[in-house]
Protein backbone atom coordinates (compact mmCIF):
# COMPACT_ATOMS: atom_id res chain seq x y z
CA UNK A 1 0.00 0.00 0.00
CA UNK A 2 1.19 3.47 -0.76
CA UNK A 3 1.03 6.23 1.78
CA UNK A 4 -1.80 8.63 1.15
CA UNK A 5 -0.76 12.13 0.36
CA UNK A 6 -2.15 14.79 2.60
CA UNK A 7 -4.72 16.88 0.77
CA UNK A 8 -3.15 19.95 -0.74
CA UNK A 9 -6.44 21.84 -0.89
CA UNK A 10 -9.37 21.85 1.42
CA UNK A 11 -12.50 20.26 0.02
CA UNK A 12 -14.56 22.68 -1.99
CA UNK A 13 -17.34 22.90 0.58
CA UNK A 14 -14.91 23.82 3.36
CA UNK A 15 -13.22 26.64 1.51
CA UNK A 16 -16.07 29.04 1.88
CA UNK A 17 -17.09 30.04 5.41
CA UNK A 18 -20.55 28.89 6.33
CA UNK A 19 -23.21 31.41 5.59
CA UNK A 20 -21.22 33.39 3.08
CA UNK A 21 -22.36 33.77 -0.47
CA UNK A 22 -21.38 35.59 -3.59
CA UNK A 23 -24.84 37.06 -3.61
CA UNK A 24 -25.71 39.57 -0.85
CA UNK A 25 -29.35 38.59 -1.22
CA UNK A 26 -28.53 34.98 -0.53
CA UNK A 27 -26.35 35.92 2.44
CA UNK A 28 -29.16 37.99 3.92
CA UNK A 29 -31.55 35.11 3.49
CA UNK A 30 -29.35 32.80 5.57
CA UNK A 31 -31.07 32.40 8.91
CA UNK A 32 -29.78 29.17 10.40
CA UNK A 33 -26.07 28.58 10.87
CA UNK A 34 -24.84 25.83 8.63
CA UNK A 35 -27.90 25.95 6.44
CA UNK A 36 -27.65 27.66 3.11
CA UNK A 37 -31.17 28.47 2.01
CA UNK A 38 -31.50 28.58 -1.71
CA UNK A 39 -32.67 31.85 -3.13
CA UNK A 40 -35.70 31.43 -5.34
CA UNK A 41 -34.53 31.04 -8.89
CA UNK A 42 -35.83 33.64 -11.29
CA UNK A 43 -38.80 32.35 -13.21
CA UNK A 44 -40.41 33.85 -16.25
CA UNK A 45 -43.93 33.42 -17.54
CA UNK A 46 -43.91 32.73 -21.25
CA UNK A 47 -46.95 32.72 -23.53
CA UNK A 48 -46.56 30.16 -26.33
CA UNK A 49 -48.91 29.87 -29.28
CA UNK A 50 -47.32 27.63 -31.91
CA UNK A 51 -44.86 24.75 -32.08
CA UNK A 52 -44.21 24.98 -28.33
CA UNK A 53 -47.81 24.20 -27.42
CA UNK A 54 -48.38 20.84 -25.78
CA UNK A 55 -48.55 18.16 -28.46
CA UNK A 56 -46.72 20.32 -31.00
CA UNK A 57 -43.25 19.39 -32.25
CA UNK A 58 -41.11 21.68 -30.08
CA UNK A 59 -42.97 21.12 -26.85
CA UNK A 60 -41.35 17.92 -25.69
CA UNK A 61 -37.79 19.09 -26.16
CA UNK A 62 -38.21 22.46 -24.50
CA UNK A 63 -41.22 22.55 -22.20
CA UNK A 64 -41.87 18.98 -21.09
CA UNK A 65 -40.59 19.77 -17.60
CA UNK A 66 -41.84 23.37 -17.42
CA UNK A 67 -44.82 24.21 -15.27
CA UNK A 68 -47.99 24.84 -17.25
CA UNK A 69 -49.88 27.71 -15.67
CA UNK A 70 -52.81 27.25 -17.99
CA UNK A 71 -54.39 28.10 -21.27
CA UNK A 72 -54.58 31.77 -22.06
CA UNK A 73 -55.50 34.24 -24.74
CA UNK A 74 -54.38 37.65 -25.75
CA UNK A 75 -56.71 40.63 -25.85
CA UNK A 76 -58.23 41.10 -29.32
CA UNK A 77 -55.32 43.25 -30.45
CA UNK A 78 -53.15 40.68 -32.20
CA UNK A 79 -52.94 38.66 -35.42
CA UNK A 80 -51.65 35.12 -35.86
CA UNK A 81 -50.01 34.42 -39.21
CA UNK A 82 -49.32 31.09 -40.87
CA UNK A 83 -45.69 30.82 -41.91
CA UNK A 84 -45.71 27.15 -42.81
CA UNK A 85 -44.05 25.07 -40.12
CA UNK A 86 -44.70 27.69 -37.47
CA UNK A 87 -46.87 30.73 -36.84
CA UNK A 88 -46.00 34.35 -36.16
CA UNK A 89 -47.71 36.59 -33.65
CA UNK A 90 -47.95 40.28 -34.44
CA UNK A 91 -49.12 42.96 -32.05
CA UNK A 92 -51.41 44.54 -34.60
CA UNK A 93 -54.97 43.53 -35.39
CA UNK A 94 -58.17 42.51 -33.71
CA UNK A 95 -57.84 38.80 -32.98
CA UNK A 96 -57.58 37.13 -29.60
CA UNK A 97 -54.80 34.58 -29.99
CA UNK A 98 -54.97 31.33 -28.04
CA UNK A 99 -52.00 29.76 -26.32
CA UNK A 100 -50.54 28.39 -23.11
CA UNK A 101 -48.53 30.08 -20.37
CA UNK A 102 -45.54 28.28 -18.89
CA UNK A 103 -43.32 29.23 -16.01
CA UNK A 104 -39.73 28.62 -17.07
CA UNK A 105 -36.35 28.88 -15.38
CA UNK A 106 -33.43 30.78 -16.82
CA UNK A 107 -31.79 27.90 -18.72
CA UNK A 108 -35.14 27.07 -20.32
CA UNK A 109 -35.69 30.70 -21.24
CA UNK A 110 -32.23 30.82 -22.80
CA UNK A 111 -33.04 27.66 -24.78
CA UNK A 112 -36.30 29.21 -25.96
CA UNK A 113 -34.47 32.38 -27.00
CA UNK A 114 -32.09 30.22 -29.04
CA UNK A 115 -34.92 28.23 -30.59
CA UNK A 116 -36.78 31.38 -31.57
CA UNK A 117 -33.63 33.16 -32.79
CA UNK A 118 -34.35 36.02 -30.41
CA UNK A 119 -33.71 38.84 -31.15
CA UNK A 120 -32.69 38.25 -34.77
CA UNK A 121 -36.01 36.74 -35.82
CA UNK A 122 -38.63 36.69 -33.13
CA UNK A 123 -38.27 39.33 -30.47
CA UNK A 124 -39.21 38.34 -26.96
CA UNK A 125 -41.49 41.07 -25.70
CA UNK A 126 -43.61 41.67 -22.60
CA UNK A 127 -47.31 41.57 -23.46
CA UNK A 128 -50.46 41.74 -21.38
CA UNK A 129 -52.90 38.87 -21.73
CA UNK A 130 -56.69 39.17 -21.64
CA UNK A 131 -56.51 38.06 -17.99
CA UNK A 132 -54.33 41.09 -17.20
CA UNK A 133 -51.24 38.95 -16.56
CA UNK A 134 -48.03 40.26 -18.01
CA UNK A 135 -46.00 37.59 -19.76
CA UNK A 136 -43.22 37.24 -22.28
CA UNK A 137 -44.09 36.32 -25.85
CA UNK A 138 -42.11 35.93 -29.05
CA UNK A 139 -43.38 38.44 -31.60
CA UNK A 140 -42.75 39.20 -35.22
CA UNK A 141 -43.09 42.51 -36.99
CA UNK A 142 -45.69 43.37 -39.62
CA UNK A 143 -42.93 43.46 -42.23
CA UNK A 144 -41.89 39.88 -41.42
CA UNK A 145 -45.36 38.49 -42.09
CA UNK A 146 -46.18 40.56 -45.16
CA UNK A 147 -48.18 38.49 -47.64
CA UNK A 148 -48.68 35.56 -45.26
CA UNK A 149 -52.08 34.08 -44.53
CA UNK A 150 -53.89 34.91 -41.32
CA UNK A 151 -55.16 32.22 -38.94
CA UNK A 152 -58.51 33.86 -38.25
CA UNK A 153 -59.33 31.56 -35.33
CA UNK A 154 -56.24 32.83 -33.54
CA UNK A 155 -55.55 29.20 -32.69
CA UNK A 156 -52.54 27.43 -34.22
CA UNK A 157 -54.11 24.06 -33.50
CA UNK A 158 -57.08 25.02 -35.66
CA UNK A 159 -55.02 26.30 -38.55
CA UNK A 160 -56.65 23.83 -40.96
Amino acid at each position, binding site marked *: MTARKPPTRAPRAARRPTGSSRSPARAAASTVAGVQPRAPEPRTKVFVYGTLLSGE*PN*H*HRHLASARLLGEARTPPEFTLYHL*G*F*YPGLVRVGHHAVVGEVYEVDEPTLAALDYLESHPR*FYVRTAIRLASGDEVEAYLLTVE*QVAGRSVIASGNWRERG
Partner: protein
Amino acid sequence: MTKTCMARALYFAYGSNLDREQMRARCETAELHARAILRGHALAFAGHSRRWAGPVATVVPSRNAIVEGLLYILRAADLRSLDRHEGHPLVYRRTRLRVTDEHGRELRAEVYVQRARRPGVPSPDYARVLRRAYQRLGFDARSLAASAEVVS
Protein backbone atom coordinates in the same frame (compact mmCIF):
# COMPACT_ATOMS: atom_id res chain seq x y z
CA MET B 1 -37.53 10.99 -28.88
CA THR B 2 -41.21 10.64 -28.28
CA LYS B 3 -43.91 9.89 -30.75
CA THR B 4 -45.29 13.39 -30.23
CA CYS B 5 -41.94 14.90 -31.04
CA MET B 6 -41.53 12.79 -34.15
CA ALA B 7 -45.03 13.50 -35.40
CA ARG B 8 -43.61 16.14 -37.70
CA ALA B 9 -40.06 16.78 -38.71
CA LEU B 10 -38.43 19.44 -40.82
CA TYR B 11 -36.42 18.12 -43.74
CA PHE B 12 -33.95 20.16 -45.79
CA ALA B 13 -34.12 18.93 -49.38
CA TYR B 14 -31.37 19.60 -51.88
CA GLY B 15 -30.12 17.80 -54.98
CA SER B 16 -32.62 15.62 -56.81
CA ASN B 17 -35.15 15.90 -53.99
CA LEU B 18 -35.75 19.43 -55.21
CA ASP B 19 -37.60 17.71 -58.02
CA ARG B 20 -41.31 17.89 -57.23
CA GLU B 21 -42.24 14.55 -58.78
CA GLN B 22 -39.49 12.67 -57.03
CA MET B 23 -40.33 14.27 -53.71
CA ARG B 24 -44.04 13.51 -54.13
CA ALA B 25 -43.25 9.89 -54.97
CA ARG B 26 -41.03 9.49 -51.92
CA CYS B 27 -43.11 11.44 -49.41
CA GLU B 28 -46.81 11.49 -50.21
CA THR B 29 -47.84 13.77 -47.37
CA ALA B 30 -44.83 16.09 -47.32
CA GLU B 31 -45.79 19.71 -47.03
CA LEU B 32 -43.55 22.44 -48.37
CA HIS B 33 -42.61 24.91 -45.64
CA ALA B 34 -40.21 27.34 -47.29
CA ARG B 35 -37.03 27.86 -49.22
CA ALA B 36 -33.97 27.68 -47.05
CA ILE B 37 -30.21 27.84 -47.06
CA LEU B 38 -27.65 25.69 -45.34
CA ARG B 39 -24.74 27.91 -44.39
CA GLY B 40 -21.13 26.78 -44.16
CA HIS B 41 -21.68 23.99 -46.67
CA ALA B 42 -21.28 23.54 -50.40
CA LEU B 43 -23.01 21.25 -52.85
CA ALA B 44 -20.79 18.42 -54.09
CA PHE B 45 -21.19 15.13 -55.90
CA ALA B 46 -19.88 11.87 -54.55
CA GLY B 47 -20.53 8.15 -54.30
CA HIS B 48 -22.38 6.20 -56.95
CA SER B 49 -26.08 5.83 -57.59
CA ARG B 50 -27.29 2.96 -59.74
CA ARG B 51 -30.47 4.87 -60.46
CA TRP B 52 -28.60 7.90 -61.72
CA ALA B 53 -25.62 6.01 -63.08
CA GLY B 54 -23.06 8.13 -61.35
CA PRO B 55 -22.23 10.31 -58.35
CA VAL B 56 -25.07 12.14 -56.64
CA ALA B 57 -25.40 15.25 -54.54
CA THR B 58 -24.12 15.69 -51.05
CA VAL B 59 -23.19 18.62 -48.87
CA VAL B 60 -19.70 19.17 -47.56
CA PRO B 61 -18.50 21.70 -44.98
CA SER B 62 -17.18 24.79 -46.74
CA ARG B 63 -16.63 28.12 -45.08
CA ASN B 64 -18.51 31.06 -46.65
CA ALA B 65 -20.49 28.76 -48.91
CA ILE B 66 -24.22 28.03 -48.86
CA VAL B 67 -26.48 25.34 -50.23
CA GLU B 68 -29.93 26.35 -51.39
CA GLY B 69 -32.78 23.99 -50.71
CA LEU B 70 -36.36 23.50 -49.64
CA LEU B 71 -37.74 22.79 -46.20
CA TYR B 72 -40.47 20.19 -46.04
CA ILE B 73 -42.64 19.27 -43.11
CA LEU B 74 -42.62 15.49 -42.92
CA ARG B 75 -44.70 13.01 -41.04
CA ALA B 76 -42.99 10.01 -39.47
CA ALA B 77 -44.00 7.76 -42.40
CA ASP B 78 -42.45 10.22 -44.88
CA LEU B 79 -39.23 10.31 -42.93
CA ARG B 80 -39.08 6.52 -42.85
CA SER B 81 -39.66 6.45 -46.60
CA LEU B 82 -36.88 8.97 -47.15
CA ASP B 83 -34.53 6.97 -44.93
CA ARG B 84 -35.11 3.99 -47.19
CA HIS B 85 -34.60 5.94 -50.40
CA GLU B 86 -31.48 7.68 -49.14
CA GLY B 87 -30.00 4.48 -47.74
CA HIS B 88 -29.75 5.87 -44.23
CA PRO B 89 -27.55 5.11 -42.36
CA LEU B 90 -25.21 3.33 -44.77
CA VAL B 91 -25.17 5.45 -47.94
CA TYR B 92 -26.45 8.75 -46.65
CA ARG B 93 -26.40 9.56 -42.98
CA ARG B 94 -29.31 11.60 -41.64
CA THR B 95 -28.20 14.36 -39.33
CA ARG B 96 -29.71 17.53 -37.92
CA LEU B 97 -28.24 20.81 -39.06
CA ARG B 98 -29.20 24.41 -38.54
CA VAL B 99 -30.67 26.03 -41.63
CA THR B 100 -32.14 29.46 -42.29
CA ASP B 101 -35.56 29.60 -43.90
CA GLU B 102 -36.78 32.27 -46.31
CA HIS B 103 -38.33 34.20 -43.43
CA GLY B 104 -34.89 34.52 -41.85
CA ARG B 105 -35.53 32.07 -39.05
CA GLU B 106 -32.92 29.52 -38.06
CA LEU B 107 -34.28 26.03 -37.61
CA ARG B 108 -32.88 22.59 -37.07
CA ALA B 109 -33.71 20.30 -39.93
CA GLU B 110 -32.99 16.75 -40.99
CA VAL B 111 -30.31 16.67 -43.68
CA TYR B 112 -28.91 13.65 -45.50
CA VAL B 113 -25.15 13.70 -45.96
CA GLN B 114 -23.32 11.09 -47.99
CA ARG B 115 -20.82 8.91 -46.25
CA ALA B 116 -18.78 8.73 -49.48
CA ARG B 117 -16.51 11.76 -49.83
CA ARG B 118 -14.62 11.01 -53.05
CA PRO B 119 -15.85 13.58 -55.58
CA GLY B 120 -17.13 12.56 -58.99
CA VAL B 121 -18.90 13.94 -62.04
CA PRO B 122 -22.67 13.43 -62.09
CA SER B 123 -24.35 11.83 -65.08
CA PRO B 124 -25.98 14.13 -67.67
CA ASP B 125 -29.44 12.91 -66.59
CA TYR B 126 -28.79 13.78 -62.98
CA ALA B 127 -27.28 17.15 -63.87
CA ARG B 128 -30.36 17.87 -66.01
CA VAL B 129 -32.75 17.18 -63.14
CA LEU B 130 -30.81 19.50 -60.87
CA ARG B 131 -30.51 22.28 -63.45
CA ARG B 132 -34.24 22.11 -64.12
CA ALA B 133 -35.06 22.28 -60.40
CA TYR B 134 -32.64 25.18 -59.89
CA GLN B 135 -34.20 27.08 -62.77
CA ARG B 136 -37.72 26.45 -61.54
CA LEU B 137 -36.86 27.59 -58.04
CA GLY B 138 -34.72 30.53 -59.10
CA PHE B 139 -31.70 29.14 -57.26
CA ASP B 140 -28.22 30.24 -58.19
CA ALA B 141 -27.18 27.73 -60.88
CA ARG B 142 -23.58 28.90 -60.58
CA SER B 143 -23.29 26.72 -57.50
CA LEU B 144 -24.04 23.71 -59.74
CA ALA B 145 -21.35 24.80 -62.15
CA ALA B 146 -18.94 25.37 -59.29
CA SER B 147 -19.67 21.90 -57.92
CA ALA B 148 -19.09 20.40 -61.36
CA GLU B 149 -15.86 22.31 -61.80
CA VAL B 150 -14.64 21.17 -58.44
CA VAL B 151 -15.12 17.56 -59.39
CA SER B 152 -14.16 17.67 -63.09
